[in-house]
């Protein structure tokens, strides 16, 4: 085999490897920065739960006994995050979600999922209600000492 050809193939291999690594890195960065996570107070006893359980409690159903969750909180501090949560976790549009929860309230004596519009208020609330959970973007969650990330939602 010609030494020049072998060298060229190796260079191509290295170039492809670099491209692949860069792609994976940027994907990882992108997915991390775009991720949404389930959060609770730093000393909360709540552990990772099934995604279906999360859907269930955000529709307004009772949490399962084993989940340790008291109630969910809808984080409305960022409209984009709220829409992304509904799309990726609840698989619903805003109006679809509202209609579903309204239906449940007046059909089965349910109540609205607690809503908090301020980021600071949400953190304070979670600190004082250790069995309650909410969601926020991964990057923000990492920067707040008072809360812990329970699991990645999307």
């Amino acid at each position, binding site marked *: 085999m010609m030494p020049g050809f072998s060298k060229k193939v190796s260079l191509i291999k290295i170039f492809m490897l670099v491209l692949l690594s860069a792609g994976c890195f940027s994907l990882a960065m992108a997915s991390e920065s775009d991720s949404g996570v389930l959060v609770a107070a730093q000393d909360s006893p709540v552990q990772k739960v099934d995604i279906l359980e999360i859907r269930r409690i955000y529709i307004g159903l009772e949490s399962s006994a084993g989940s340790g969750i008291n109630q969910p909180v809808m984080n409305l501090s960022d409209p984009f995050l709220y829409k992304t949560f509904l799309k990726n976790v609840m698989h619903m549009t805003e109006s679809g979600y509202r*209609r579903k929860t309204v239906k449940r309230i007046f059909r089965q004596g349910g109540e609205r999922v607690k809503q908090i519009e301020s980021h600071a208020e949400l953190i304070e609330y979670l600190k004082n209600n250790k069995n309650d959970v909410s969601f926020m973007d991964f990057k923000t969650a990492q920067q707040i000492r008072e809360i812990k990330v329970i699991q990645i939602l999307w």
Partner: protein
Amino acid sequence: MLFRHVNLAALCGLLLLQAMPLYADSVLSGYASVVAGRASNGDEYLADYPKAAVYDEDWSFSPDSSVGVQLKTDLDNDLMFVIQAVSNGASDYDVELDWAYLSYQLNAEFSIQAGRKRLPLYYYSDFFDVGYAYHWIRVPADNYTWQISNYNGVNLQYQSYLNEWDILVNLYAGREDSRNNDLLSLLSDAPVDETWKNMVGLVVEFSGNWMDFRTTYMQGQIDRSVDGVVVAEDVKQVFSGVSVNFNLNHFVLLSEFNRYERDASDIVIDTSMVSLGYYWGQFTPHISHSLLKQKHNAAGGDEYHTTDSVGVRWDYNDSTAFKIQYDRTEDRGVTVPVLGDAEMLSLGVDFVF
């Protein structure tokens, strides 16, 4: 009757209860619809069968406007009390109790309830008056033609999920006595007392990301008297129905098919509804077709009417929706006409609080 008619003071009482510091946890919720409409190309338009709500050629707010207030009180972790008072323009704004029941949570999935509830025959029966929960001004009238809306009794409810499906199973039993029934008295032009008794029913619902499926069955007996004369006693009746709804991307397709049978009187009535909507941002344009068709019998029963509707819902904010709707009804019954052909224009706003 004990539960049915209460005065406005009861509604105020509910609001006061919420304002008072209670030992139990209480949550107050409510809804309201303000709807104006008028009939054209026909003398009258029957917009709501159960409440016998009729529009004529003058603009009116009464037939479809309503307000409801619900108080839910947690008496302890497993026991709650729910009461819902409703005032409808079609009933001269009398306040009635649609719901008043105790619910005991047996475990995460099972609960048992006793008291007064909406009779869950149709898909929208439970939240018939909550206009915010659907895209129409009112649910398609031909499909919702029953004369009894509530019952007093008990039910056992199971709620869980299987993979991505929410499951609801509701087994209920009870009865309802309706004096001077709104719908039957209108159609008979005489006071009609109606009792639905020994009712036993089952509702099964599967609700997923892109599809809802519901099936319903109820059987019971009827007592009826017209102008004080008993015309039916212990007559068996059976109701069955299926509803399938699809949510596909921006499209929503709603459908419902029901059958009501009373063998002793040779009465078989089929009702159905299909509606297509499109979620276009805050707007939901929709088009619908509904019908009621009675099988011909020896008594000449041939009630048959259809309605085509087109409308738009605008979600103004997260608790308010504006709506406009045009309906055209064809009354094809010969022996049993209802109110004749008519067209209808309605504008409304629904909100929840």
